[in-house]
């Protein structure tokens, strides 16, 4: 069952478009905001609420890489692996993260603290290498700074 808050947020979006089904991406975002990820059940609940089939919802959900169809940790690290960060040393940053967190891209720490994912260009190439943790952007990162950065996230 979608929560009242989730429904209200989706209803607001429905009011802006000619067809309910056009809000499916918004609905996925809203539900993911509340629940952290989109489970099969969430897919069905959204489908039900928008009057479309679960396959329709999942077809859209699985296209977009920032809709998580698997559970994620409490915090999601998005490490930029695009060209400027590549030139400025993202690989050693990745190696350091792998070492510190003992996980690789696509994995979550056993204690559910972090999920580590690559992400395409974060749009701050003049401050490469860069990464995001949840909604926070970190730029000009050095390996030395990593511990202090990660510490902030329980």
């Amino acid at each position, binding site marked *: 069952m979608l929560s009242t808050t989730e429904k209200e947020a989706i209803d607001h979006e429905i009011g802006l478009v*000619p*067809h309910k089904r056009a809000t499916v991406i918004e609905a996925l975002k809203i539900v993911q905001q509340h629940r952290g990820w989109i489970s*099969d059940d969430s897919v069905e609940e959204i489908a039900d609420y928008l009057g479309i089939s679960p*396959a*329709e919802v999942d*077809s859209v959900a*699985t*296209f*977009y*890489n920032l809709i998580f169809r698997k559970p994620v940790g409490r915090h999601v690290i998005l490490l930029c692996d695009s060209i400027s960060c590549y030139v400025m040393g993202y690989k050693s940053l990745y190696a350091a993260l792998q070492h510190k967190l003992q996980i690789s891209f696509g994995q979550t720490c056993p204690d559910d603290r972090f999920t580590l994912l690559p992400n395409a260009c974060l749009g701050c190439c003049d401050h490469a290498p860069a990464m995001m943790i949840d909604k926070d952007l970190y730029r000009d990162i050095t390996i030395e700074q990593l511990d202090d950065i990660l510490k902030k996230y329980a």
Partner: protein
Amino acid sequence: MPRIYIDNVPFEVKAGKNLLEACLSLGIDLPYFCWHPAMGSIGACRQCAVKVYKDAEDTKGRIMMSCMESVKDDLRISVCDPGAKAFRAQVIEWLMTNHPHDCPVCDEGGSCHLQDVTVMTGHDYRRYEFKKRTYTNQYLGPLINHEMNRCIQCYRCVRFYRDYAGGKDLNVFSAHNHVYFGREKDGVLQSPFSGNLAEVCPTGVFTDKTLKEHYTRKWDLTNAPAICQHCSLGCNIIAGERYGQLRSIVNRYNSEVNGYFLCDKGRFGYEFVNSENRITQTLVRHRTAEAVDEHTLMSHLPHILIGHTVIGIGSPRASIESNYALMELAGKECFYQGLSDNQVFLEQKIVDILSAGAIHTPSLKEIEQADAVLVLGEDIWNTAPIMALAVRQSVMKTAAAHVQEQVPLPGWHDAALKELAQESKGFLANMSILPSPLDEIAACEVHGAPDDLARLGFQIAHLLNNTLPAVDNAAETLLQNATMISQQLLQAKHPVIIAGTSTGSEALIRAAYDIAASLQNNERQPGLAFVLPDCNSMGLAMTGASSFEKALAIVQKNPDVTAVILENDLYRNIPADLVDNFFSKCRQVVVLDTLHNRTTEKADVLIPVASFAEGDGTFINNEGRAQRSYQVFMSPDKALKEAFKWLFEMKVIRRAISNGHDVHPDEMLAGLERVYPQFKGITDVVPSHAFRIHGSRIPRESQRYSGRTAMLANKAVSEPKPLQDDDSPLSFTMEGYRGMPPAPLIPYFWAPGWNSGQAVNKYQQETGGALKGGDPGIRLFRETGTIPAYFQDIPDAFSPRQGKWFLLPQYQLFGSGEFSIYTKGIAALSPEPRAILSARDAASLNMAPGDQLSVQTDNRTYQLPLETMDDLQDGIVILTAGLKGMDALSWGTWVNLFK
């Protein structure tokens, strides 16, 4: 007509087409994947690349996708340009980077469009040396197999399943080179048109699971052009046989009837031919049933045929030849339809309407082209699925046509037209007893009792033609709906009204007629389509013979009757009491049928007859189109023959007349036409059995057919003479005329370089158009230009009665067919019998869903689990009809219910 230059040769082509369609229609071999003649172009696969030049001076040109370019005057293109050829070959190499080397083990091999295109492009060497991407397959139900590694991502499956057929549970997932086509999770595919995935998919991702049970390569099959036996639409099919077993049914293109698609019942419901329940031996019952040989039978028959009254009970599923032969045996006055009084009455009404010729009855293609559709009471999703599919196309195409009026876009530009159309739809009003999947695309859905739906129909007719009476005491909603619907129908140029017999209501048929007749004028050509139950219901109805009850009356008075029952399990069509009574009063019962059933149990003489797979026959579909179904194989012991041949011999015995030889279907039709003028024209249905092309027959087998000697070597090492088909121009061999046969004789679609079903392109006048020489079938009803005579009787509003309920049937696409349930997969998808009441009525009986409801009708009491439905009119009880083992009931009567 625009003139284009293809490799410097000028061609006149049809305006509005794209270059791919134009080239294919000209017979030029251009490869493609994502374009489909019924679904238009999307330009995704990039396979159909050609070079297009700016003008006559441009020698370089640029590569464009032929499926996305409209023809226009003076356009210059090249198909043979080396750059274009290299690109087309490269597309295959790209697809081959992930495509598995499955050909030897893939079902599609030998009828695979990907194989054909690969050879066509000349690609032959894979330079890719890295790993191939693989997928996990899904369980998709008992009918369709899933093997995703073979996918070339042409998107045809989802375009057919979702866009064309309205299915909801198949889609595309993920992105980049991980795109996946399937359901969101394993499970049975919900659409009853899912079988078309096997033909629409150009590779072996989606294949016929039933074929896997007895797999055979396309080139090894013996084929025949046949007619689907499962409903009255008469879809054209190709039956494929090997080793004495019917192995597959695929679509046989007929642009007027089924086009490119079949429903799953028709495609997969063939296993009854191979069933262990086939009657294999002639049985004569003295005290017990004993198998007898033909000689014994022939000595026995005179005793029961000569010197007794012989009555014939005909069949709506037997061929018209067999029904006619029975008429000849028993005599016209002693031939009866094996159907109830009410059913005969309804069907006669339909025959009268269509024979009068005042209204046009549309083909399925014409229904697709309708710009407004009104379905009056018939549950076409279940009783005529391909008609429901055609109605869906009407709704979508009309929306696209409106778009084209505002934005000049060609009709093949599928995605663009859909984007502009958004959710808009052509007009469909769906009026039915129960909710239906068609409601989703209907502008107006009305559910109610048949009489209430009929009243709505009559009110619409009154608004269209004020000389017709208005409906008295009409409810406000009825008046509003009638106003809205009539306005929509008036705006249409080709409205179609659809009705049928499954509700048992005559008023609906009359109302449908009045509406269609009222719409007719100089600017508007309405169509009136009727749905009947069985594959030859129309043929039987056209004989005008009396109902079963009349036959029953005869046997009740006359104790010395030999009843000859043709291919009809009477318990499915007539209430059990009456049938039992009938059998108890007959002196002798002779039954001719294909499978054992409750009627064959009562036979004193039981004669096995050929099914459609082993015999020829002509069937008349719901639009009065007579079509021939040819046998695909002959059973080795030639004793299994068409019913009409037995009946003819029985007539010879009875009347001691003979024409000295086995009778051909042609002769039966000639006789039929002579004696019954309503069948005039039927002898043109196919060329005669003597037809040859340059002295050759038309082979049922491909030139690659193999194993002819080996397969019978266990019986005799030397190869036997191929069986001879005396009834048709077809042969049971691969020898014969290798060119294009006349359309009704096409046993399979193949052309050099085109091994898959896409070869049908070569047989059409233009892609997506009629077959060369015209589509098969002869329409027997002709418009006469008579002024329509209207019906004036309007039924009263339905009102529930105290203590009684109005009994109505619900037919199931999977389950209500007599034969289709012999296919395991279809039986698995068939529901259990149940009864349906409105929630209020259930409460008044103190019953909850799941409880057992007792229904008292036709002198019996039936117990079924109860289901409730909010949308159902109070006072009605619905029973699932036609399921295995269920009796026929007196639909449309008032019955008792209790807990």
